[in-house]
């Protein structure tokens, strides 16, 4: 049975299949990789594929592959990014960042005469790509105002329409082990670059919904344009803006234009901060990076596809996936839960 669901229904499915087994294996069927393994009952076991195993497989399929097709294959670095995007690995200096932001907000609150300019944050594109705000800034009791440059938005939206053109090469050359690749790939499907941009776009929409935000004008594209737009905004406004970025390089431009910045240090990739919420998010993000994942638990296999012909932008924003499963109860659960959620929304 194939059914379109919000990714949170993966919890319902895991609840059902884990009655018979607790150890879950997650594979990327198109790439023939065992990505992660975990114990669903208490999360005391969580294992990711190591770089040697990952890279040896990737090297075995990329021989003679052209650059365009290469761009469709997630590297090990991309795989580690999925852990960061889901919040399972944490930037090294996260505590200092949060403390710094809290302090800046507090200074202004306690002594507005001494600190007349409200503290606000400007975002670099990578902050949206790596879901830093939804994963980490939500922990703050008081939330700062967030400024988003059009340069950032244009950089993201310029990529969400990128399609994979040569499906048969991707299917035959790269995914030659998978006979049924045609069930996953189709002409006009979103490219890897587009899929990552859609994660960023979805984060942008979430941030705009949950935070006080302001869009400012800016030209496309690149670090200099981003800094320039924040600099122009600060010059004409009464705010004290700090740029938040994962990129050391942009800080130079930022400093030259008199904009302070916070560098988010890359996480330590073998130190996990695992919980059920970020685990489920990881499964969703993996399905986007690897086109599809299969979740295996003894006799059950749940296949989660992130792209399909006819998928709309609303599906991306609602975080819908296409699930192939033999767990028939999921349809009844979905129908009831959707009706109930609709009823509850009436009380808001």
């Amino acid at each position, binding site marked *: 049975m194939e059914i379109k669901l919000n990714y*949170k*229904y993966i919890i319902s499915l895991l609840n059902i299949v884990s009655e018979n087994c607790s150890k879950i294996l997650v594979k990327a069927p198109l790439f023939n990789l065992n990505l992660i393994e975990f114990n*669903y*009952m208490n*999360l005391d076991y969580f294992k990711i594929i190591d770089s040697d195993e990952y890279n040896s497989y990737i090297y075995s399929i990329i021989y003679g592959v052209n650059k365009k097709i290469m761009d469709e294959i997630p590297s090990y670095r991309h795989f580690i990014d999925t852990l960061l995007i889901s919040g399972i690995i944490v930037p090294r200096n996260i505590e200092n960042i949060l403390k710094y932001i809290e302090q800046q907000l507090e200074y202004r609150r306690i002594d507005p005469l001494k600190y007349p300019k409200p503290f606000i944050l400007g975002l670099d594109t990578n902050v949206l790509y790596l879901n830093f705000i939804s994963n980490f800034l939500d922990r703050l009791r008081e939330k700062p105002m967030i400024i988003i440059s059009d340069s950032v938005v244009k950089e993201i939206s310029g990529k969400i329409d990128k399609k994979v053109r040569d499906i048969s090469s991707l299917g035959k050359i790269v995914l030659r082990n998978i006979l049924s690749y045609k069930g996953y790939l189709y002409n006009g499907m979103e490219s890897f670059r587009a899929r990552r941009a859609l994660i960023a776009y979805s984060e942008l929409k979430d941030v705009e919904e949950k935070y006080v935000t302001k869009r400012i004008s800016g030209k496309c594209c690149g670090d200099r344009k981003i800094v320039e737009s924040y600099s122009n905004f600060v010059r004409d406004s009464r705010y004290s803006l700090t740029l938040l970025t994962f990129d050391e390089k942009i800080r130079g431009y930022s400093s030259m234009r008199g904009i302070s910045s916070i560098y988010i240090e890359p996480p330590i990739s073998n130190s996990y901060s695992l919980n*059920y*919420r970020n685990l489920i998010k990881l499964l969703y993000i993996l399905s986007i990076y690897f086109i599809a994942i299969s979740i295996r638990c003894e006799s059950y296999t749940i296949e989660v596809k992130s792209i399909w012909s006819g998928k709309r932008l609303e599906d991306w924003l609602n975080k819908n996936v296409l699930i192939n499963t033999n767990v028939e109860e999921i349809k009844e659960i979905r129908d009831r839960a959707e009706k*109930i959620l609709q009823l*509850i929304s009436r*009380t808001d």
Partner: protein
Amino acid sequence: MDWSFIISVGLSIEAVVSCLWSFVEKYYLPKEVCFIYTSVTERFRDILRDVVKTFSPTISIRDVVVDETSIENIVKKVGSIVDEYRVRGYKVCIDVTPGRKTMSIALYYTGLRKNVDKIVYLHLKNKMFEGEIYPFIPKPCIDLVTLYGD
């Protein structure tokens, strides 16, 4: 024998939904559901009626409004409902999870005094899932605990 399900209603509809859903999944689909409201939560009446219908359109629903500060009054009112269900041949389950502590105390006391068939409490072990409905809560984070009865 058919089951009746008595449950207090607090400010979180999600909690009421999760209690009913987990009871249905773990035990039985009740023939009758009785919601114990306060003057504050009474406004959820229509919504919860529609929620119950998503489980089965044939479930009967009863709404009772109590003064949450008067344990004695709640015990009296709920006690008479339990008696009535018994006369009609129902087994009785009381869920003490949602609502104020006074409501839970009153419902638990009533259950013991009337020797109902089951008193249950939905233990959410992880606060992260507060505000979510049952299907979106991982099984290891939630447990329908039987406080009394089989």
